[in-house]
Every structure is written in structure tokens, then in C-alpha cells.
């Protein structure tokens, strides 16, 4: 059903997807690192609004998709690191599929002459 997989807020859903993918790629990362990675990987096309990142991270943690722990960075600062859980991996897969579907649909409409 359409309702099931895609959250009500599409943008929110995209942010979730990006974070999950980042963590799947990197493994364990703190919030700042996630922001940097998304910026670099998108070749500066996407800039995460830092004000919405942390609420999203905590929300995802409450939903059980990511887990957190405090650790030291290379520069000896204490930061909270996040990593994917098994449920998070499943959610990543779902979100990826839904997003692909969305993109294909939009592209199809745009190409329609």
C-alpha cells in the first residue's frame, strides 16, 4: 500500500534515506561526519540543514534503525557515533526501492511529450 513505506513528509523521507545510506557506507559516524559525507558524495549538490539532522537522527534511533554510542574522534573530542542496526538495513532497502520508484515515475512524466 502506498501509505506503508513512504512517510508523509517526502523530504523527511529523503533525509532518512541519505543518512541510512551514509551509515551503510561508512559504518560508524557522528552527525557532523554525516553532513560532510553527504555534501561530498553529492558533489556539493546537497547541503543538509543541520537543524533538522539531529531531530531526524534521534527519531531514527527511537524507531530502532540506528544505534548510538559515545566515542572519541581523532582530535580527541567526545562525539556521539551512530551505526546501522539490522532493522535499519531493512528500512534502507525499502526506502531505496520506494525512492527509485518515485524517481522513475517523475522521470516518466517529465519525458512524456
Amino acid at each position, binding site marked *: 500500500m502506498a501509505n506503508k513505506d513512504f512517510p508523509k513528509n517526502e523530504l523527511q523521507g529523503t533525509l532518512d534515506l541519505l543518512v541510512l545510506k551514509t551509515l551503510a557506507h561508512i559504518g560508524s559516524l557522528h552527525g557532523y561526519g554525516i553532513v560532510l559525507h553527504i555534501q561530498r558524495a553529492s558533489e556539493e549538490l546537497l547541503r543538509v540543514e543541520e537543524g533538522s539532522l539531529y*531531530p531526524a537522527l*534521534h527519531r531514527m534511533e*527511537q524507531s530502532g534503525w540506528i544505534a548510538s554510542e559515545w566515542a572519541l574522534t581523532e582530535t580527541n573530542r567526545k*562525539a556521539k557515533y551512530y551505526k546501522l542496526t539490522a532493522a535499519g538495513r531493512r528500512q534502507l532497502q525499502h526506502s531505496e526501492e520506494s525512492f527509485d520508484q518515485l524517481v522513475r515515475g517523475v522521470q516518466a512524466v517529465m519525458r512524456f511529450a
Partner: protein
Amino acid sequence: MAVFRRIANLFRRSRMDREIDAELQAHIALRTDDNLAAGMSPEEARRDALLRFGNPTATKERVAAADASLAFGTFWRNVRFALRQLRRSPGFAITAILALALGIGPNVAIFSIIWATFLAPPAYPHPEQVVVVWNHYKGEREPTSGDDYAEYAAQSHSFQSLSFQSWIVVHLTNPDHTADEAGGLPISPGMDTRTVGRPMWLGRDFQPDEGGPGNDHLVILGHLLWQQRYNSDPNILGKSILIEDAPYTVVGVTKANPRERPGGIEFNVPLLLTPGAHSRHFGIVIGRLKPGVTLAQAQAELSVIDQRLWAQRNPGSNSKPMSLTVERFRNDWLDLKIQRNLWLLLDAVGLVLLIACANIANLLLVRGKSREQELAVRSALGATRKQIFVQLLTESLTLAVVGGAIGIAMGWAIMKLSMSLIPALADQIADGVVEINIPVLCFAFVIALLAGVISGCAPGWKATRINLSETLKQGSRSLGGRGRAPAQSILVTAEIALALILLSGAGMALHSFWNLSHIDVGFIPDNVLTALLRPRNVTPRGGMPTFPTPQQIVVQQHQLIDRIRSVPGVADAALATSMPLHGFNTFPFTVAGQPVDKSHPPEADYVSVSPSYFGTLGIRLVRGRFLNENDILGAPLAIMVNETFVRRYLNNADPLTQRLVLPRLGPGENRDPQFDQYQIVGVFHDVLDNEHLTGAVQPEMYVSQWQAAWPFGGVAVRTVGVDPAVVTHALQVAVSSAKSGTAIDHVEVMREVVDGQRSSDRFEMALFGGFAAVALLLAAVGIYGVMSFAVAQRSHEIGVRMALGARRSEVVVLMVRGGMRLALIGIAIGLAGAYGLGRLMHTTLYGVESADLGSLTAVAALLLLVAMLACWLPARRSAAIDPMKALRNE
């Protein structure tokens, strides 16, 4: 799980706050570091980091909200919302709450009774260690002799403490030297405090050396006696009271114990039993096991000791014919039937609760339909399915709590009502203890929650499957079409099935009660009072009393009867060695001329009666004649037998030609048994002598007291014009004056004894009937609701039908048919369940098979009728639909 995490977060708020703060600050610090590394100055680096981050305070709040979004704050919000909703639809609220109360109330009532009878822990420590020792002979429990007890106490190692309670009653003596009704028993020292473990209220227990000759005129008063007769005198210790006309000193008063079994044992005197002393006491052995000793071990040890004793006393014989068991000292006194009944009733009220839940679920489903719009909007605005489900669940839980509160009040009322209905039950449980206490309240809370969850699940789940786009479209009408959700149909069918099961239980209970009411007891119990004669006890110092000669006894008996007859209100009086419904004394005999089967020697119940017995009790004659005043010493020995006797032992011969040979017995030692021949002079109609109405009738023989005189036994009195209980005191006076020193004991009104036997069945019938009625009501309301809803849903379809030419009656029939189909399926399923219930109840019923076709048909028909009515009433409304309006509502 996520929920718990969030709840936990709520309590750790300040710590969470600090942590969030730290995380956000860390982010800003990291960016500042990077900026510094890229070459900015410290102030610039920090400014840039802050700018990029945005407002940390606002962010912190949003993060905190994400953490706590499912916390208790939301819960209370849901509850408040639920209450508002209920206030807005009072009709629904009242119906639902009432249904819940009807479901929860009976559960609370029955549970409180069950709690008081078996589940509550008794008032003394380590109750599992307290045991009773029983001897068994031919399936009956027999008392133990004092000598045996002394040996057990000396030889056994399994007990911390072993005590003995003699069954020889001693009585208080009034100041005028007449025996009082209040009776007490001799017990061995330490019974109360060491064996059972109840501390004294005042004073002390008997010391281990007390109870022997010269040291036994001491007494411990029961709490109730001390309150009632001695006005709770705080200085009672050391005072002297008269027992069996001798002074005894009070050394202690027991604690009040409402669960002590009734029986009029109001005080205790000490009794010291040592091995080898030939005590004439017999009674019951109660002990407290050593820690770690099991029942089986104690039983094995005592059995060995017992067998050894028997072998020593009866050299050369086989092992003792009695067996010995050690059992838990429990609320054994409660009739086993009542126990089973209570558990059955608990199941029954569970069913009622289920029906109530089904009703509420139906109601909620219906309501859900009308709230679809609202829920769709909420969903579109961002509520997750989980949130909606939780909110609906909260609503039904709120309902459940309110319904539960009312249910507790209802349960209290039901409980008080049933206790007053069945005095016998109240006796056995001891009033004051059945109450709404903490365990009962916990139980009520749990089932209220369960009810809320069960009823709320189906509607909640349904609500989450709303098709958003469909619902938000123009149509405020819900999905038309069949108009009757399958969930509702299933629920109603289930309700009907459960209601049928309950009704069948009630029907069977009613049937059994009716059977019991029509048992022929064989005599006329109305206006009859019975009592046992208790000659004054010789002080417990041993020594055999001297017995009068038979002639003296006969004279005494005559005087006694005459004196009793002279009491105003007494129409007739009789003496007998045992009364009806009081158990039997078997006696061996042989039929003159018939060979004796040594392996099954004939036995029959033996009763010696005065000739007035037959008139006093209204016993019926079948053949021959009654024993009369001509059957005296010197005349030919006459005997009467009952019909069962004739059937069992005198198959083919005419009973009036037979003679029976009985050993001559009388008070006093009998070294050389002699035999007497008795001529059967009459056959009487069976009289129930078993202690239970439903027990099998034994073969009985009656002899005349003037020929076989017994100074023991009981007296039966028939009154005229007055209530039998009223003559009790006058009877006591008459007996004391005719036979000095004799008291009467166990005074009973025959009608009450007979009725009392039926009390547990009356209880079962009343309660089962009540609950079945509630179930019927609930089921009817359920069907009515579903039908009304169906009519409303299908009004469009009905309009179309009528416009196409259907007559009103046809439409009504159509609706009713749909409803009846559900009812029939429900009844069919219910019948299967009813059969199962019948098998469960079988042992508690009398004369009713487990598949009692009569009552099953009756209740099925009743349910069908009610269902039809519940279908027809709303269906009638469908006939009143104006087709034009219905069609226009498109």
C-alpha cells in the same frame, strides 16, 4: 523496545538534556576545528560554525521532542481526549459502560468468594506443614484412639509437634447445676500455639505437663465464648468456671479466628496422653511437620508405627484393616461440591465477561465507522498507524476503567446478595472474611484492563486500515454495499454461542435442583426437631461408668418421653439411637435359615426406636405393622426392615415369615456373645439415613427400644402450632429433669437439615441462572445493535428494493432472515460448547446427564425467541423507511 525506551527517557530528562546539549556542542566544535584547520581565525571559525548550525536551542527542543514523542504526556492527552469523546456521545458511553460493569461485576463477586475460601493464606505460619492424620476404614474416615496418638507422639520423628483433639465433649455447667449447651473438647498441650501456631489472645497455652490426673482442671476459652458469655472480661485469667459441675481455672483465651469451622467447640481443657495408659479418648491427630519432611514420608513412617502397634495388640492376625493417611490441614470442611461449584461459576462469569467484551467491540466498531472521517483527517495530518491504534486502545481502556469501577460496586452488591441467599455457604466461609480486599481489587483491575484491550483490539486494528483517499473523498457515507462487516457478524455469533453455553449451564443446574427438591426422604421433616442426648461426662480420669439394667433404662426412657410430651407445643416425641440423615451404624445379622456367605457377611443399619418414632417422623408402612407398645421385654422380639433390606436380603420370600438372628448387645462388656431371634413384623418405606440426600439408601432394621434398650442416642420431637426451634430450651429443661445430668446437643430442625442439603444446589442454580440471564441480555443487546446498524447501512438498498416493488413485510423478513442466520450458527456452535459444559458439571448435578436434552432444547428455544425479537424490532424500522428519502440520500 522503542516504547520502553521513550518511557524511560521521560524519567531521565535532565540527563537527556545534557546529553543532547553535548552532542550538538560537539558538532559545532568539530566544524570549528575544521575551520581552524582551513585557516580561519578562532572567532571566525566559531561564528561560521554557529551560523551554519542554526539555532541550537530550537534544535535541542526538536531533538528532545523526537526522543519523547511517545511518552506518558501523550498518554494523558489520549485519555483526556477519550473522556471528551465519551461525554459527547452519552448513549454509547452509558451502553458500553453498563455492558462492562455487567461483565466485570459478577467476576469480582465470584472471585472474592473464591479468594476467601481457598486462596487466602490461613492465619498461621507455614500452613503447608500443618497436617491431619486420618484412619480409613471401608472408605470412611475414622477417628484415632488416644493410645495410638500417644504411641505416634513417642515413636515418630517426622513432627515438630503432634497434638490430639479428643471428640468426647464436655459441657459448661450453669450455676443451677444443669448442663449448658456450650461444649468443649480436651486437647493435648501445645495444640494451639505449637502445632497450629496461633498465638494466644490472653494468657497461655497448656503446659506439657498439664492434663494429667490432678492437674487438669484448667481451661482455655474460645474468643467468641469469652466475648459473648464473659463480656470480654480482661481479668478472666485465674477465674474459675464450672465444667461438668467441677471448677476449672481459666488460663488463656484464644485469638479471634473467623475461619474456625463452626461446630460449637467453644473452649478446651487439657489432656495428657502417655503411651501405655489405656485412655478411652478418641479423636483427631493434628501435627506440624518438621521442615523438609514431606506428607508422604510422614505417612509412611506413621503407617509403619501403626502396623507395629496393631501387630503387638493382635498377635497372629493379618495387617490392620484400616489404612492411615496424612493430609494437609486445609479448609477441608468446605463441601467438595461447593468447591467445584465455585470454580464452575468462575468459568461462567468469565464467559459473561467475554460476551460483554464482544458487545463493546461491536459498539466500538460501529462507532469506528462513524468516525472514519475524523480518523482519516488525523492520519493525513501525520498520525502514524501506531498512534491511531494506541489512541483507540486508550479510549477503550478508559471505558474499561470506568466500567470496572462500577463493576466493582456491582460485584460487591452481588456478593452480599449471594451470601445472604445461602446461609450455609456463609457458615462455611464465616462471614466478615468475604469482602473486597486488595487481591480482589487487583483482580478487578486486571480483568478491566483485559476487557479494554480485548474489546479495543478489533476496532483499533480496523481503524488503522482506513483507505485514506477513499474516505477523504466527498462521501461522508462509509463504504456501502453489504453494510455488515464480517467482524461484527463473527462477534455476534460468538456472543450467541457463549450465551447458549451459559443458559445450558443454568438449565442443568435448575434441572438438578428440581430433581433434588423431589427426592423422597421417606419421612415428613416439617415441624420436627431432633437433638442428641449427651449424658453428663465422667471427668476425664478414666474408669468405666456403671450401666443401669435394661429394665431401668426402659423406665427412664418412658419417663423421658412423657416429660418431653408435656412440654407445650410438643405433639409427639420419640427416642432412637440415630436420626434420619445422620449417617448409619452397620450391624451384622443373619437370616434364619439362610446360609451365610463368610466373605460378605450381611450387614444392615441398626436403629433402636421407641414406637412413637413412626408417628413423630411420619414414616410410612408398606407391609405388616409398626412396632408398638406391646413389643416389650418378655414379648416375642420384633423387628422391622425397610424395602431396600427386603430387596437386598429377602429376595424371594415373604418378609413377614422371616426371622433375623442378631448378636445380643447391650451396654457393658460382652465376652460371650449371645444371639437373639427377631421376627419381622413389618416393612417400612425407605428412610434416607445417609448424610447426603443423594446417598444410596442402606438396608435398615428397626427394633423397639422397649426390647433393646439403649440409653444413648437422640430424641425427635414433633411440634404443632409453634416453630420447632422455639421449644429447644423447654426440651433441655425437660430432659435434664427427667434424666439428671443429661444435656441435649446438636439441636437441629429437620426441615432445615433437608433444605440445607440442597443449599449448594440452590446456590449453583441461583447464580448460574443470574449469570445466564445477564448473558442473555447482553447477547440480545448485541444482536439488536448489529441489526440496527445493518438497517441503517442498508437503508439505501432497502429504498431501492421498495421502489422496485418489494412490500414492507418482505423487506422486514429479509432483514430478519439475515440476523437469524447468525443466531442459528451461534446456537449450533453453542450446543457443542454446552455439551462440553455438561460433562464438566456432571459430577455436581443430580439426576441429570451430561447431555440433558430437555434443558438444552428449552434454552435453545428461549435463545432463538429472544434473538428473533432482537432482530425483528429494528427490522421493523426498515419497513418504515420512505423509499424516496432513502434514494435521495445518494
